[in-house]
Protein backbone atom coordinates (compact mmCIF):
# COMPACT_ATOMS: atom_id res chain seq x y z
CA UNK A 1 0.00 0.00 0.00
CA UNK A 2 2.78 2.39 0.85
CA UNK A 3 4.43 2.01 -2.51
CA UNK A 4 1.61 3.39 -4.61
CA UNK A 5 1.95 7.05 -3.72
CA UNK A 6 5.69 7.16 -4.25
CA UNK A 7 5.32 5.57 -7.65
CA UNK A 8 2.68 8.07 -8.68
CA UNK A 9 4.65 10.89 -7.15
CA UNK A 10 7.74 10.17 -9.17
CA UNK A 11 5.66 9.65 -12.29
CA UNK A 12 3.94 12.97 -11.82
CA UNK A 13 7.06 14.91 -11.03
CA UNK A 14 8.91 13.54 -14.02
CA UNK A 15 6.02 14.49 -16.31
CA UNK A 16 5.96 17.94 -14.82
CA UNK A 17 9.69 18.26 -15.33
CA UNK A 18 9.44 17.19 -18.95
CA UNK A 19 6.62 19.64 -19.50
CA UNK A 20 8.60 22.46 -17.96
CA UNK A 21 11.61 21.68 -20.16
CA UNK A 22 9.46 21.66 -23.27
CA UNK A 23 8.03 25.00 -22.29
CA UNK A 24 11.29 26.83 -21.80
CA UNK A 25 13.00 25.54 -24.94
CA UNK A 26 12.88 28.66 -27.12
CA UNK A 27 11.07 28.47 -30.42
CA UNK A 28 13.58 28.75 -33.21
CA UNK A 29 13.78 32.32 -34.52
CA UNK A 30 11.81 32.44 -37.71
CA UNK A 31 10.50 35.13 -39.96
CA UNK A 32 7.16 36.67 -39.12
CA UNK A 33 4.63 35.09 -39.16
CA UNK A 34 5.88 31.81 -37.80
CA UNK A 35 2.73 30.80 -35.96
CA UNK A 36 -0.99 31.47 -35.86
CA UNK A 37 -2.18 35.02 -35.49
CA UNK A 38 -5.12 35.92 -33.27
CA UNK A 39 -7.47 38.71 -34.22
CA UNK A 40 -9.36 39.94 -31.18
CA UNK A 41 -12.51 41.74 -32.24
CA UNK A 42 -13.71 44.18 -29.60
CA UNK A 43 -17.37 43.95 -30.63
CA UNK A 44 -19.58 40.91 -30.31
CA UNK A 45 -19.78 38.11 -32.81
CA UNK A 46 -22.05 38.68 -35.79
CA UNK A 47 -21.80 42.47 -35.86
CA UNK A 48 -20.44 44.50 -38.76
CA UNK A 49 -16.93 44.81 -37.37
CA UNK A 50 -16.82 41.11 -36.60
CA UNK A 51 -18.02 40.09 -40.07
CA UNK A 52 -15.56 42.37 -41.87
CA UNK A 53 -12.69 41.17 -39.73
CA UNK A 54 -13.58 37.56 -40.44
CA UNK A 55 -13.81 38.15 -44.20
CA UNK A 56 -10.54 40.09 -44.46
CA UNK A 57 -8.65 37.89 -41.95
CA UNK A 58 -9.50 34.84 -44.03
CA UNK A 59 -7.87 36.37 -47.11
CA UNK A 60 -4.88 37.66 -45.15
CA UNK A 61 -4.41 34.20 -43.67
CA UNK A 62 -4.13 32.74 -47.14
CA UNK A 63 -1.61 35.34 -48.17
CA UNK A 64 0.48 34.97 -45.01
CA UNK A 65 0.08 31.18 -44.99
CA UNK A 66 -0.87 30.92 -41.31
CA UNK A 67 -4.20 30.70 -39.53
CA UNK A 68 -5.75 33.90 -38.30
CA UNK A 69 -8.11 32.98 -35.49
CA UNK A 70 -10.83 35.55 -35.02
CA UNK A 71 -12.11 35.75 -31.44
CA UNK A 72 -14.40 38.23 -29.76
CA UNK A 73 -13.68 40.10 -26.56
CA UNK A 74 -16.51 42.59 -26.27
CA UNK A 75 -17.26 44.69 -23.23
CA UNK A 76 -15.93 47.58 -21.26
CA UNK A 77 -16.45 51.05 -22.66
CA UNK A 78 -16.35 51.41 -26.46
CA UNK A 79 -14.40 48.21 -26.83
CA UNK A 80 -11.93 49.08 -24.09
CA UNK A 81 -11.81 45.53 -22.75
CA UNK A 82 -10.58 44.01 -25.99
CA UNK A 83 -8.24 46.92 -26.65
CA UNK A 84 -6.69 46.71 -23.18
CA UNK A 85 -6.22 42.99 -23.65
CA UNK A 86 -4.44 43.33 -26.99
CA UNK A 87 -2.45 46.29 -25.72
CA UNK A 88 -1.28 44.07 -22.86
CA UNK A 89 0.04 41.44 -25.27
CA UNK A 90 3.51 41.62 -26.75
CA UNK A 91 3.99 43.98 -29.68
CA UNK A 92 5.06 41.15 -31.96
CA UNK A 93 2.22 41.31 -34.49
CA UNK A 94 0.70 38.00 -33.40
CA UNK A 95 -2.28 39.65 -31.77
CA UNK A 96 -4.39 41.95 -33.90
CA UNK A 97 -7.29 43.95 -32.62
CA UNK A 98 -10.43 44.22 -34.75
CA UNK A 99 -12.07 47.57 -34.13
CA UNK A 100 -14.17 50.37 -35.54
CA UNK A 101 -14.38 54.15 -35.38
CA UNK A 102 -16.42 54.08 -32.14
CA UNK A 103 -13.39 52.72 -30.29
CA UNK A 104 -11.79 56.17 -30.39
CA UNK A 105 -14.16 57.23 -27.60
CA UNK A 106 -12.89 54.65 -25.12
CA UNK A 107 -10.49 57.15 -23.56
CA UNK A 108 -12.90 60.05 -23.01
CA UNK A 109 -15.53 57.66 -21.74
CA UNK A 110 -13.16 56.45 -19.08
CA UNK A 111 -12.64 52.96 -20.51
CA UNK A 112 -8.86 53.20 -20.57
CA UNK A 113 -6.19 55.88 -20.48
CA UNK A 114 -4.56 55.58 -23.91
CA UNK A 115 -4.89 57.80 -26.96
CA UNK A 116 -5.70 56.07 -30.20
CA UNK A 117 -2.17 56.67 -31.53
CA UNK A 118 -0.96 53.61 -29.62
CA UNK A 119 -2.32 51.62 -32.57
CA UNK A 120 -1.01 51.05 -36.05
CA UNK A 121 -4.32 50.67 -37.89
CA UNK A 122 -5.46 49.14 -41.17
CA UNK A 123 -8.79 50.55 -42.36
CA UNK A 124 -11.02 48.28 -44.41
CA UNK A 125 -13.68 50.91 -44.90
CA UNK A 126 -17.35 51.25 -44.11
CA UNK A 127 -20.74 51.92 -45.50
CA UNK A 128 -21.96 55.49 -46.07
CA UNK A 129 -24.69 56.89 -43.81
CA UNK A 130 -28.12 57.65 -45.16
CA UNK A 131 -31.18 59.43 -43.76
CA UNK A 132 -34.52 57.73 -44.37
CA UNK A 133 -38.10 58.05 -43.19
CA UNK A 134 -41.05 55.81 -42.43
CA UNK A 135 -42.86 54.80 -45.61
CA UNK A 136 -46.17 56.34 -44.49
CA UNK A 137 -44.71 59.59 -43.21
CA UNK A 138 -45.38 61.50 -46.43
CA UNK A 139 -41.93 63.05 -46.64
CA UNK A 140 -40.39 62.72 -50.09
CA UNK A 141 -37.35 64.98 -50.03
CA UNK A 142 -34.89 66.09 -47.42
CA UNK A 143 -36.12 69.68 -47.83
CA UNK A 144 -39.70 68.60 -46.90
CA UNK A 145 -38.37 66.94 -43.78
CA UNK A 146 -36.08 69.77 -42.72
CA UNK A 147 -38.85 72.34 -43.11
CA UNK A 148 -41.16 70.30 -40.91
CA UNK A 149 -38.50 69.56 -38.32
CA UNK A 150 -39.27 71.86 -35.42
CA UNK A 151 -38.25 69.47 -32.68
CA UNK A 152 -41.46 67.44 -32.59
CA UNK A 153 -40.31 64.83 -35.10
CA UNK A 154 -38.65 61.78 -33.57
CA UNK A 155 -35.39 60.59 -35.09
CA UNK A 156 -33.77 57.24 -34.32
CA UNK A 157 -30.10 56.36 -34.33
CA UNK A 158 -27.97 54.03 -32.26
CA UNK A 159 -26.87 55.32 -28.84
CA UNK A 160 -25.41 58.72 -27.97
CA UNK A 161 -21.95 59.24 -29.44
CA UNK A 162 -22.30 56.50 -32.05
CA UNK A 163 -21.33 57.22 -35.65
CA UNK A 164 -24.96 57.44 -36.72
CA UNK A 165 -25.81 59.78 -33.87
CA UNK A 166 -22.93 62.02 -34.92
CA UNK A 167 -24.22 62.00 -38.48
CA UNK A 168 -27.66 62.97 -37.22
CA UNK A 169 -26.17 65.80 -35.15
CA UNK A 170 -24.19 67.02 -38.16
CA UNK A 171 -27.34 66.92 -40.27
CA UNK A 172 -29.14 69.02 -37.68
CA UNK A 173 -26.27 71.51 -37.44
CA UNK A 174 -25.86 71.82 -41.21
CA UNK A 175 -29.53 72.22 -42.09
CA UNK A 176 -30.96 73.92 -39.01
CA UNK A 177 -33.46 71.11 -38.57
CA UNK A 178 -34.40 70.04 -35.07
CA UNK A 179 -35.27 66.45 -34.23
CA UNK A 180 -36.15 64.73 -31.00
CA UNK A 181 -33.33 62.19 -30.81
CA UNK A 182 -34.45 58.75 -29.60
CA UNK A 183 -31.51 56.40 -29.01
CA UNK A 184 -31.72 52.65 -29.78
CA UNK A 185 -29.39 49.80 -28.97
CA UNK A 186 -27.99 49.55 -32.48
CA UNK A 187 -28.95 50.02 -36.08
CA UNK A 188 -31.42 47.14 -36.47
CA UNK A 189 -33.72 48.30 -33.65
CA UNK A 190 -33.54 51.92 -34.90
CA UNK A 191 -34.65 50.80 -38.33
CA UNK A 192 -37.40 48.63 -36.92
CA UNK A 193 -38.68 51.63 -34.96
CA UNK A 194 -38.82 53.65 -38.16
CA UNK A 195 -40.70 50.81 -39.86
CA UNK A 196 -43.29 50.50 -37.09
CA UNK A 197 -43.74 54.25 -37.07
CA UNK A 198 -42.53 54.66 -33.52
CA UNK A 199 -40.12 57.23 -34.95
CA UNK A 200 -40.23 59.04 -38.28
CA UNK A 201 -36.60 59.49 -39.20
CA UNK A 202 -33.71 57.07 -39.01
CA UNK A 203 -30.00 57.50 -39.69
CA UNK A 204 -27.97 54.32 -40.21
CA UNK A 205 -25.65 53.04 -42.89
CA UNK A 206 -26.68 52.11 -46.40
CA UNK A 207 -25.50 48.53 -45.88
CA UNK A 208 -27.87 48.14 -42.98
CA UNK A 209 -30.81 49.83 -44.67
CA UNK A 210 -30.61 48.77 -48.31
CA UNK A 211 -32.88 45.74 -47.98
CA UNK A 212 -35.56 47.75 -46.20
CA UNK A 213 -35.33 50.59 -48.72
CA UNK A 214 -35.55 48.25 -51.68
CA UNK A 215 -38.41 46.40 -50.00
CA UNK A 216 -40.33 49.65 -49.72
CA UNK A 217 -40.40 49.69 -45.92
CA UNK A 218 -38.27 52.83 -45.60
CA UNK A 219 -38.08 55.84 -47.95
CA UNK A 220 -34.55 57.14 -48.52
CA UNK A 221 -34.18 60.92 -48.49
CA UNK A 222 -30.49 61.63 -48.87
CA UNK A 223 -26.99 60.23 -48.64
CA UNK A 224 -24.92 61.94 -45.94
CA UNK A 225 -21.92 61.90 -48.28
CA UNK A 226 -20.93 64.37 -51.03
CA UNK A 227 -21.87 61.86 -53.74
CA UNK A 228 -25.30 60.52 -54.67
CA UNK A 229 -25.78 56.77 -54.73
CA UNK A 230 -27.34 54.63 -57.44
CA UNK A 231 -29.38 51.93 -55.66
CA UNK A 232 -30.54 49.06 -57.77
CA UNK A 233 -34.34 49.03 -58.17
CA UNK A 234 -34.77 52.32 -56.31
CA UNK A 235 -32.93 54.87 -58.42
CA UNK A 236 -30.61 57.66 -57.48
CA UNK A 237 -30.51 58.71 -53.86
CA UNK A 238 -29.36 62.34 -53.90
CA UNK A 239 -26.62 63.70 -51.68
CA UNK A 240 -27.79 65.86 -48.80
CA UNK A 241 -25.08 68.31 -49.90
CA UNK A 242 -27.10 69.20 -53.06
CA UNK A 243 -29.84 70.94 -51.10
CA UNK A 244 -27.66 72.03 -48.18
CA UNK A 245 -24.13 72.82 -49.47
CA UNK A 246 -23.11 74.13 -46.04
CA UNK A 247 -23.21 70.51 -44.79
CA UNK A 248 -19.66 70.08 -46.05
CA UNK A 249 -18.49 71.84 -42.93
CA UNK A 250 -19.88 68.98 -40.82
CA UNK A 251 -19.95 65.94 -43.09
CA UNK A 252 -19.03 63.34 -44.17
CA UNK A 253 -18.31 61.35 -41.03
CA UNK A 254 -17.46 57.92 -42.33
CA UNK A 255 -17.25 54.58 -40.65
CA UNK A 256 -13.72 53.27 -40.27
CA UNK A 257 -13.88 49.54 -39.63
CA UNK A 258 -10.65 47.64 -39.63
CA UNK A 259 -7.92 46.14 -37.53
CA UNK A 260 -4.74 47.29 -35.82
CA UNK A 261 -1.56 46.17 -34.14
CA UNK A 262 0.39 47.97 -31.46
CA UNK A 263 2.18 50.99 -32.87
CA UNK A 264 5.45 49.88 -31.24
CA UNK A 265 5.56 46.62 -33.21
CA UNK A 266 8.73 46.05 -35.27
CA UNK A 267 8.82 47.70 -38.68
CA UNK A 268 9.17 44.49 -40.67
CA UNK A 269 6.03 43.10 -39.01
CA UNK A 270 4.15 46.26 -39.96
CA UNK A 271 5.38 45.97 -43.53
CA UNK A 272 4.45 42.32 -43.87
CA UNK A 273 0.99 42.90 -42.42
CA UNK A 274 0.38 46.05 -44.50
CA UNK A 275 1.31 44.23 -47.68
CA UNK A 276 -0.92 41.27 -46.80
CA UNK A 277 -3.75 43.61 -45.85
CA UNK A 278 -3.53 45.59 -49.09
CA UNK A 279 -3.37 42.39 -51.13
CA UNK A 280 -6.34 40.94 -49.20
CA UNK A 281 -8.50 43.96 -50.00
CA UNK A 282 -7.70 43.49 -53.67
CA UNK A 283 -8.82 39.87 -53.81
CA UNK A 284 -12.00 39.17 -55.75
CA UNK A 285 -13.64 37.72 -52.65
CA UNK A 286 -13.31 40.93 -50.63
CA UNK A 287 -14.11 43.19 -53.58
CA UNK A 288 -17.22 41.23 -54.43
CA UNK A 289 -18.25 41.05 -50.79
CA UNK A 290 -17.95 44.83 -50.52
CA UNK A 291 -20.16 45.39 -53.59
CA UNK A 292 -22.79 42.91 -52.45
CA UNK A 293 -22.92 44.49 -49.02
CA UNK A 294 -22.71 48.17 -50.02
CA UNK A 295 -19.38 48.81 -48.38
CA UNK A 296 -16.88 51.34 -49.65
CA UNK A 297 -13.36 50.01 -49.25
CA UNK A 298 -10.73 52.36 -47.93
CA UNK A 299 -7.53 50.33 -47.65
CA UNK A 300 -5.63 52.98 -45.69
CA UNK A 301 -2.74 51.70 -43.62
CA UNK A 302 -0.01 53.15 -41.46
CA UNK A 303 0.40 56.91 -41.19
CA UNK A 304 -2.61 57.70 -43.38
CA UNK A 305 -4.85 55.44 -41.35
CA UNK A 306 -3.52 56.96 -38.13
CA UNK A 307 -4.37 60.39 -39.44
CA UNK A 308 -7.91 59.30 -40.27
CA UNK A 309 -8.37 57.88 -36.79
CA UNK A 310 -6.84 60.95 -35.17
CA UNK A 311 -9.43 63.19 -36.82
CA UNK A 312 -12.23 60.79 -35.83
CA UNK A 313 -10.86 60.70 -32.28
CA UNK A 314 -10.92 64.45 -32.03
CA UNK A 315 -14.41 64.75 -33.54
CA UNK A 316 -15.99 61.99 -31.45
CA UNK A 317 -14.28 62.95 -28.20
CA UNK A 318 -15.18 66.61 -28.35
CA UNK A 319 -18.75 65.95 -29.46
CA UNK A 320 -19.25 63.61 -26.52
CA UNK A 321 -17.68 66.16 -24.18
CA UNK A 322 -20.06 68.82 -25.45
CA UNK A 323 -23.01 66.46 -24.99
CA UNK A 324 -21.80 65.93 -21.41
CA UNK A 325 -21.60 62.22 -22.09
CA UNK A 326 -17.83 62.02 -21.64
CA UNK A 327 -16.16 61.29 -18.33
CA UNK A 328 -12.68 62.58 -19.15
CA UNK A 329 -12.01 65.99 -20.63
CA UNK A 330 -10.42 65.40 -24.06
CA UNK A 331 -8.10 68.30 -23.28
CA UNK A 332 -6.58 66.35 -20.40
CA UNK A 333 -5.81 63.53 -22.82
CA UNK A 334 -4.23 65.98 -25.22
CA UNK A 335 -6.81 65.42 -27.92
CA UNK A 336 -6.95 68.54 -30.12
CA UNK A 337 -10.37 70.10 -30.74
CA UNK A 338 -11.69 69.55 -34.28
Amino acid sequence: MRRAPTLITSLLSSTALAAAMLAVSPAAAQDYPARDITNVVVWSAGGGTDVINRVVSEQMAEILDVNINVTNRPGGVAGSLGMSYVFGQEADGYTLVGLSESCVTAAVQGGWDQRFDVWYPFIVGGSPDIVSVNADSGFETLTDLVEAADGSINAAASGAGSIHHLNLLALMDGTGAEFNFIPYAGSAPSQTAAMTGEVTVVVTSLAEQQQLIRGGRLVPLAMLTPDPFELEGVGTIPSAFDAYPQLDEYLPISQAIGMAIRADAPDDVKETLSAAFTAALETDEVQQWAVENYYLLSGLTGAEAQEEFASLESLFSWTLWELEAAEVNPEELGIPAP
Partner: protein
Amino acid sequence: MSDPSDTRKLRQADLWTGLGLVVFALGMLGVTATFPITDSYGGVRNVWYVSPALLPLLIGVSILLMAGMLVRKAMRDLGPEGVRQTLRLPQAGFGSRTQRLLLILGSVCAYVYVFIPVVDFALATALFLAVFIFGFHLDREASVARNLLILIASTVTVGVAASVVGQEARDAVVDALTGSAVIAAAAINARALARQQLPLVAWRKGLIVAVLTPLLLCPLFKYGLLVPLPYEGTVIGAMDALRYAVFR
Protein backbone atom coordinates in the same frame (compact mmCIF):
# COMPACT_ATOMS: atom_id res chain seq x y z
CA MET B 1 -43.86 21.81 2.14
CA SER B 2 -46.77 20.43 4.12
CA ASP B 3 -44.59 19.72 7.13
CA PRO B 4 -45.51 22.46 9.62
CA SER B 5 -42.03 22.62 11.16
CA ASP B 6 -40.56 23.16 7.69
CA THR B 7 -43.02 25.95 7.01
CA ARG B 8 -42.16 27.51 10.34
CA LYS B 9 -38.44 27.42 9.51
CA LEU B 10 -39.19 29.03 6.18
CA ARG B 11 -41.17 31.83 7.78
CA GLN B 12 -38.26 32.40 10.15
CA ALA B 13 -35.91 32.60 7.20
CA ASP B 14 -38.41 34.90 5.46
CA LEU B 15 -38.27 37.28 8.39
CA TRP B 16 -34.51 37.55 8.01
CA THR B 17 -34.46 37.77 4.21
CA GLY B 18 -37.36 40.21 4.31
CA LEU B 19 -35.38 42.50 6.58
CA GLY B 20 -32.31 42.00 4.39
CA LEU B 21 -34.30 42.90 1.31
CA VAL B 22 -35.57 46.06 2.96
CA VAL B 23 -31.96 47.10 3.61
CA PHE B 24 -31.04 46.18 0.02
CA ALA B 25 -33.94 48.16 -1.43
CA LEU B 26 -33.16 51.18 0.72
CA GLY B 27 -29.53 51.05 -0.36
CA MET B 28 -30.57 50.77 -3.99
CA LEU B 29 -32.93 53.72 -3.66
CA GLY B 30 -30.20 55.70 -1.92
CA VAL B 31 -27.77 55.21 -4.81
CA THR B 32 -30.52 55.83 -7.34
CA ALA B 33 -31.20 59.19 -5.78
CA THR B 34 -27.81 60.37 -7.06
CA PHE B 35 -28.71 59.64 -10.71
CA PRO B 36 -29.51 62.58 -12.99
CA ILE B 37 -33.25 63.05 -13.05
CA THR B 38 -33.87 66.33 -14.78
CA ASP B 39 -30.82 67.74 -16.54
CA SER B 40 -29.81 66.68 -20.04
CA TYR B 41 -27.39 63.78 -20.29
CA GLY B 42 -25.82 62.08 -23.29
CA GLY B 43 -27.54 64.25 -25.88
CA VAL B 44 -31.01 63.22 -24.82
CA ARG B 45 -33.51 65.70 -23.49
CA ASN B 46 -34.05 64.58 -19.95
CA VAL B 47 -37.36 64.61 -18.19
CA TRP B 48 -38.30 62.38 -15.25
CA TYR B 49 -39.55 59.65 -17.55
CA VAL B 50 -36.32 59.50 -19.51
CA SER B 51 -34.13 59.39 -16.45
CA PRO B 52 -31.86 56.40 -15.88
CA ALA B 53 -33.25 56.43 -12.36
CA LEU B 54 -36.77 55.46 -13.46
CA LEU B 55 -36.52 51.68 -13.50
CA PRO B 56 -34.23 51.39 -10.44
CA LEU B 57 -36.74 53.51 -8.53
CA LEU B 58 -39.61 51.28 -9.58
CA ILE B 59 -37.64 48.15 -8.70
CA GLY B 60 -36.50 49.54 -5.36
CA VAL B 61 -40.01 50.52 -4.35
CA SER B 62 -41.46 47.18 -5.48
CA ILE B 63 -38.85 45.20 -3.55
CA LEU B 64 -39.54 47.36 -0.51
CA LEU B 65 -43.27 46.67 -0.78
CA MET B 66 -42.92 42.94 -1.30
CA ALA B 67 -40.30 42.58 1.42
CA GLY B 68 -42.73 44.38 3.70
CA MET B 69 -45.47 41.90 2.82
CA LEU B 70 -43.07 39.03 3.39
CA VAL B 71 -42.10 40.31 6.83
CA ARG B 72 -45.74 40.96 7.74
CA LYS B 73 -46.74 37.44 6.74
CA ALA B 74 -43.82 35.95 8.66
CA MET B 75 -44.62 37.97 11.77
CA ARG B 76 -48.26 36.97 11.59
CA ASP B 77 -47.49 33.28 11.17
CA LEU B 78 -44.80 33.17 13.84
CA GLY B 79 -46.58 35.21 16.46
CA PRO B 80 -44.82 37.69 18.74
CA GLU B 81 -42.97 34.98 20.69
CA GLY B 82 -41.76 33.32 17.49
CA VAL B 83 -40.52 36.62 16.14
CA ARG B 84 -38.53 37.26 19.29
CA GLN B 85 -37.02 33.78 19.10
CA THR B 86 -36.11 34.23 15.45
CA LEU B 87 -34.46 37.56 15.93
CA ARG B 88 -32.06 36.16 18.50
CA LEU B 89 -28.86 35.58 16.56
CA PRO B 90 -28.65 32.01 15.34
CA GLN B 91 -25.66 30.01 16.55
CA ALA B 92 -23.41 28.81 13.79
CA GLY B 93 -22.43 25.19 14.28
CA PHE B 94 -19.21 23.75 12.93
CA GLY B 95 -20.68 20.37 12.15
CA SER B 96 -19.79 18.12 9.26
CA ARG B 97 -22.37 19.77 7.03
CA THR B 98 -20.75 23.16 7.56
CA GLN B 99 -17.37 21.63 6.81
CA ARG B 100 -18.66 20.20 3.55
CA LEU B 101 -20.14 23.55 2.62
CA LEU B 102 -16.85 25.26 3.48
CA LEU B 103 -14.88 22.86 1.32
CA ILE B 104 -17.17 23.43 -1.67
CA LEU B 105 -17.27 27.20 -1.37
CA GLY B 106 -13.62 27.44 -0.37
CA SER B 107 -12.33 25.41 -3.28
CA VAL B 108 -14.50 27.25 -5.82
CA CYS B 109 -13.45 30.64 -4.44
CA ALA B 110 -9.76 29.72 -4.25
CA TYR B 111 -9.90 28.31 -7.78
CA VAL B 112 -11.53 31.38 -9.27
CA TYR B 113 -9.97 34.19 -7.25
CA VAL B 114 -6.50 32.92 -6.42
CA PHE B 115 -5.42 30.22 -8.87
CA ILE B 116 -7.05 31.01 -12.22
CA PRO B 117 -5.70 34.58 -12.53
CA VAL B 118 -2.03 33.66 -11.96
CA VAL B 119 -1.56 29.92 -12.33
CA ASP B 120 -1.48 27.84 -15.50
CA PHE B 121 -5.08 26.82 -16.12
CA ALA B 122 -4.29 23.13 -16.46
CA LEU B 123 -2.45 23.04 -13.13
CA ALA B 124 -5.03 25.14 -11.34
CA THR B 125 -7.77 22.83 -12.58
CA ALA B 126 -5.89 19.72 -11.56
CA LEU B 127 -5.44 21.02 -8.01
CA PHE B 128 -9.07 22.13 -7.76
CA LEU B 129 -10.31 18.75 -8.95
CA ALA B 130 -7.92 16.84 -6.74
CA VAL B 131 -8.95 18.62 -3.56
CA PHE B 132 -12.61 18.61 -4.47
CA ILE B 133 -12.81 14.96 -5.51
CA PHE B 134 -10.59 13.61 -2.74
CA GLY B 135 -12.57 15.63 -0.24
CA PHE B 136 -15.89 14.10 -1.16
CA HIS B 137 -15.05 10.80 -2.77
CA LEU B 138 -12.77 9.09 -0.24
CA ASP B 139 -13.47 8.28 3.38
CA ARG B 140 -16.09 11.06 3.62
CA GLU B 141 -16.06 12.61 7.11
CA ALA B 142 -12.30 12.71 7.66
CA SER B 143 -11.40 13.45 4.06
CA VAL B 144 -13.44 16.64 4.01
CA ALA B 145 -11.50 18.16 6.88
CA ARG B 146 -8.18 16.87 5.57
CA ASN B 147 -8.66 18.32 2.11
CA LEU B 148 -9.97 21.56 3.53
CA LEU B 149 -6.59 21.91 5.24
CA ILE B 150 -4.71 21.05 2.04
CA LEU B 151 -6.78 23.64 0.20
CA ILE B 152 -6.08 26.36 2.74
CA ALA B 153 -2.36 25.60 2.89
CA SER B 154 -1.89 25.57 -0.88
CA THR B 155 -4.02 28.64 -1.43
CA VAL B 156 -2.07 30.64 1.11
CA THR B 157 1.28 29.46 -0.27
CA VAL B 158 0.43 30.20 -3.88
CA GLY B 159 -1.30 33.45 -3.03
CA VAL B 160 1.70 34.71 -1.10
CA ALA B 161 4.15 33.50 -3.74
CA ALA B 162 2.19 35.22 -6.49
CA SER B 163 2.36 38.55 -4.74
CA VAL B 164 5.97 38.27 -3.54
CA VAL B 165 7.87 36.76 -6.46
CA GLY B 166 8.90 39.13 -9.24
CA GLN B 167 7.38 39.17 -12.69
CA GLU B 168 10.04 37.06 -14.50
CA ALA B 169 10.12 34.13 -12.16
CA ARG B 170 6.49 34.20 -11.11
CA ASP B 171 5.09 31.79 -13.71
CA ALA B 172 7.65 29.13 -12.93
CA VAL B 173 7.44 29.47 -9.14
CA VAL B 174 3.66 29.60 -8.93
CA ASP B 175 3.21 26.73 -11.37
CA ALA B 176 5.79 24.61 -9.59
CA LEU B 177 4.08 25.26 -6.25
CA THR B 178 0.67 24.35 -7.65
CA GLY B 179 2.05 21.23 -9.31
CA SER B 180 3.65 20.16 -6.03
CA ALA B 181 0.37 20.86 -4.25
CA VAL B 182 -1.38 18.39 -6.57
CA ILE B 183 1.28 15.79 -5.83
CA ALA B 184 1.12 16.54 -2.12
CA ALA B 185 -2.66 16.25 -2.10
CA ALA B 186 -2.45 12.88 -3.84
CA ALA B 187 0.23 11.64 -1.46
CA ILE B 188 -1.43 12.86 1.73
CA ASN B 189 -4.75 11.35 0.82
CA ALA B 190 -3.20 8.05 -0.21
CA ARG B 191 -1.30 7.90 3.08
CA ALA B 192 -4.42 8.56 5.07
CA LEU B 193 -6.25 5.81 3.24
CA ALA B 194 -3.40 3.42 3.66
CA ARG B 195 -3.25 4.13 7.37
CA GLN B 196 -6.93 3.24 7.70
CA GLN B 197 -6.41 0.10 5.61
CA LEU B 198 -8.89 1.40 3.06
CA PRO B 199 -8.68 0.40 -0.62
CA LEU B 200 -7.13 2.83 -3.05
CA VAL B 201 -9.66 2.33 -5.88
CA ALA B 202 -11.55 5.55 -5.26
CA TRP B 203 -8.28 7.44 -4.79
CA ARG B 204 -6.93 6.17 -8.11
CA LYS B 205 -10.12 7.11 -9.95
CA GLY B 206 -10.10 10.57 -8.43
CA LEU B 207 -6.47 11.16 -9.35
CA ILE B 208 -7.02 10.01 -12.92
CA VAL B 209 -9.99 12.35 -13.33
CA ALA B 210 -8.12 15.24 -11.71
CA VAL B 211 -5.11 14.88 -14.00
CA LEU B 212 -6.82 13.83 -17.22
CA THR B 213 -9.64 16.37 -17.23
CA PRO B 214 -7.39 19.43 -17.64
CA LEU B 215 -5.14 17.57 -20.08
CA LEU B 216 -8.15 16.89 -22.29
CA LEU B 217 -10.09 20.10 -21.73
CA CYS B 218 -7.27 22.56 -22.34
CA PRO B 219 -6.31 21.43 -25.86
CA LEU B 220 -9.98 20.97 -26.72
CA PHE B 221 -10.83 24.53 -25.83
CA LYS B 222 -7.64 26.12 -27.03
CA TYR B 223 -7.20 24.41 -30.37
CA GLY B 224 -10.69 23.04 -30.97
CA LEU B 225 -12.91 25.91 -29.93
CA LEU B 226 -10.28 28.65 -30.32
CA VAL B 227 -10.92 29.77 -26.77
CA PRO B 228 -7.66 30.93 -25.19
CA LEU B 229 -7.48 29.81 -21.58
CA PRO B 230 -7.58 32.27 -18.69
CA TYR B 231 -3.89 31.92 -17.86
CA GLU B 232 -1.45 30.02 -19.96
CA GLY B 233 1.67 29.10 -18.05
CA THR B 234 4.11 26.22 -18.21
CA VAL B 235 1.84 23.26 -18.98
CA ILE B 236 -0.21 24.98 -21.67
CA GLY B 237 3.02 26.52 -22.98
CA ALA B 238 4.32 22.97 -23.31
CA MET B 239 1.16 21.99 -25.17
CA ASP B 240 1.73 24.89 -27.58
CA ALA B 241 5.33 23.86 -28.15
CA LEU B 242 4.24 20.28 -28.75
CA ARG B 243 1.53 21.33 -31.15
CA TYR B 244 3.88 23.47 -33.24
CA ALA B 245 6.51 20.76 -33.16
CA VAL B 246 3.99 18.24 -34.52
CA PHE B 247 2.06 20.36 -37.01
CA ARG B 248 4.75 22.53 -38.50
